[in-house]
């Protein structure tokens, strides 16, 4: 028996997707798909003993190392990572809060994460379900994301015996995930619909079509930076392709509404819109202290400005990277020390100033006034 497996360092895992200038990348930040899977012969993770969870972790480790689609894969036992590294993974949305546990309790025994070094493709082990296969793509690429994940699912399913039921499909700890176990979502920027006061109508309309939404980053369901996550609500009774297709068509319509709203704003209130964009740019270029939420709200203005060609730089992928790297754990890693809130806000402001200065020529106004 070898000694305990090494804990690989956290590099750029999960960040590749942000560099992609995916389709509709100015509106859809990223597309994500996950599959919930459990293994025969074990209780679900929350019900299993620490010993069982650790046995399962080792099986999962061996299975991921044997897959082809992950290419070079890193595997972490969450308990072996320090708190800072766990938060780093959380900020990249590669692990859930449930997987890393609270600061007091830490993770449960046997919690793990497998991740390809080449793409944001991998799985969480012993979260709510034994396996949560997941992938992330930049921009609006649900179908491509599903194709990657389907292949990983085939490979893992050939090595580990999934719990599958003729009538109910893939069995999950919570019946809201049973069947396909598939949750697809897009992370979407909708300032036009917010500014034109149509957002509620659009979001509520979606609720009736088996699709759900929530604000991201905020406490509970607070909306920050005009960013929303839209995902399928039901997982049973439809094929995976139908679920993806349905969400894709619906998001396509939301993108259409958002573009219409932006066109209305440009026509009806160009001065207000331009002022909003430039004001956001001005503050981000000069602020000396930036709380995360404020930064996200201002970046929303910049993203809108880029999309409407009011700003020539930075590029959208620069904004995507800032959204990750200006979070506290990432800032702390860059600083090489723990940051309290005031430190983090100052460090964030400095990071943002540099990122905006380095990544493009000084923006020019679109037209003379």
């Amino acid at each position, binding site marked *: 028996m070898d000694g305990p497996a090494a804990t690989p360092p956290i590099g750029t895992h999960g960040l590749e997707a942000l560099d992609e200038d995916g389709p509709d990348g100015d509106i859809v930040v990223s597309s994500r798909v996950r599959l919930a899977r459990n293994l025969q012969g074990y209780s679900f993770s929350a019900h299993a003993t620490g010993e*069982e969870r650790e046995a399962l972790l080792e099986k999962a480790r061996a299975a991921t190392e044997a897959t082809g689609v992950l290419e070079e894969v890193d595997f972490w036992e969450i308990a072996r990572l320090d708190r800072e590294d766990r938060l780093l993974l959380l900020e990249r949305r590669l692990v859930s809060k449930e997987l890393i546990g609270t600061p007091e309790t830490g993770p449960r025994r046997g919690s793990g994460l497998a991740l390809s070094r080449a793409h944001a493709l991998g799985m969480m082990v012993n979260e709510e379900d034994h396996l949560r296969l997941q992938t992330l793509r930049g921009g609006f690429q649900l179908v491509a994301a599903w194709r990657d994940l389907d292949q990983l699912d085939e490979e893992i399913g050939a090595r580990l015996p*999934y719990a599958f039921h003729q009538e109910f499909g893939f*069995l999950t700890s919570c019946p809201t995930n049973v069947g396909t176990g598939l949750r697809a979502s897009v992370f979407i920027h909708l300032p036009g619909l917010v500014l034109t006061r149509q957002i509620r109508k659009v979001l509520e309309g979606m609720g009736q079509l088996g699709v759900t939404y929530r604000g991201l980053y905020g406490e*509970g369901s607070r909306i920050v930076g005009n960013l929303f996550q839209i995902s399928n609500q039901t997982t049973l009774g439809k094929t995976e392709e139908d679920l993806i297709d349905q969400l894709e068509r619906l998001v396509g319509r939301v993108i259409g509404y958002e573009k219409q709203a932006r066109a209305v704003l440009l026509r009806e209130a160009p001065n207000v819109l331009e002022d909003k964009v430039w004001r956001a740019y001005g503050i981000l270029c000069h602020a000396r202290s930036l709380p995360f939420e404020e930064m996200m709200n201002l970046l929303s203005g910049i993203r809108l400005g880029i999309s409407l060609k009011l700003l020539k730089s930075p590029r959208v992928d620069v904004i995507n990277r800032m959204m990750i790297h200006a979070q506290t754990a990432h800032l702390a890693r860059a600083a090489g020390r723990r940051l309290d809130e005031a430190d983090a806000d100052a460090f964030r402001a400095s990071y943002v100033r540099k990122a905006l200065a380095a990544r493009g020529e000084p923006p020019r106004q679109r037209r003379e006034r």
Partner: protein
Amino acid sequence: MDCENCGERKAKITLTEIENNEMRTLNLCSTCATLKGVSAAAGSAPMADLLAHLGGSAGDTLFDEAGEACEYCGTGAGDFRRSGRLGCPQCYAHFHRQLRALLRRVHGSSQHMGKVYVSTAPDADPEQVRLSTLKRRLERAVEIEDFESAADLRDAIHALTEVS
């Protein structure tokens, strides 16, 4: 604080809505929040709330506390109603009838239409499953201080481990 929508249950979730370009804050119970399309905040159990909301029609009659617990993991109907989580894959067979009714309400269907899984992986060793079941029942017997059953279970586990 009471839920500002139904006024009956305790508010657990703060929902911020955008109306007329203004943020409006509503304090809601998880059930009303779920009905408004908000996924419940981390740590809560939307399924449990849903069961509570379905009340007499599905919650009480379908998942009757008095019914037998899953023989593999010991999860009872009451456990499921409280946590919204099942204990193991076998629970789906154990609560088959109840889950079918529940799934039809939640998903609009109980029939899986997606990928069909035929395991090419080595099946879980039936002996291992049996051993695991016995161990679990032993743990429970000790928990509830049923030492007579515990002694029998311990013997059964010994017999099984000696053979293999």
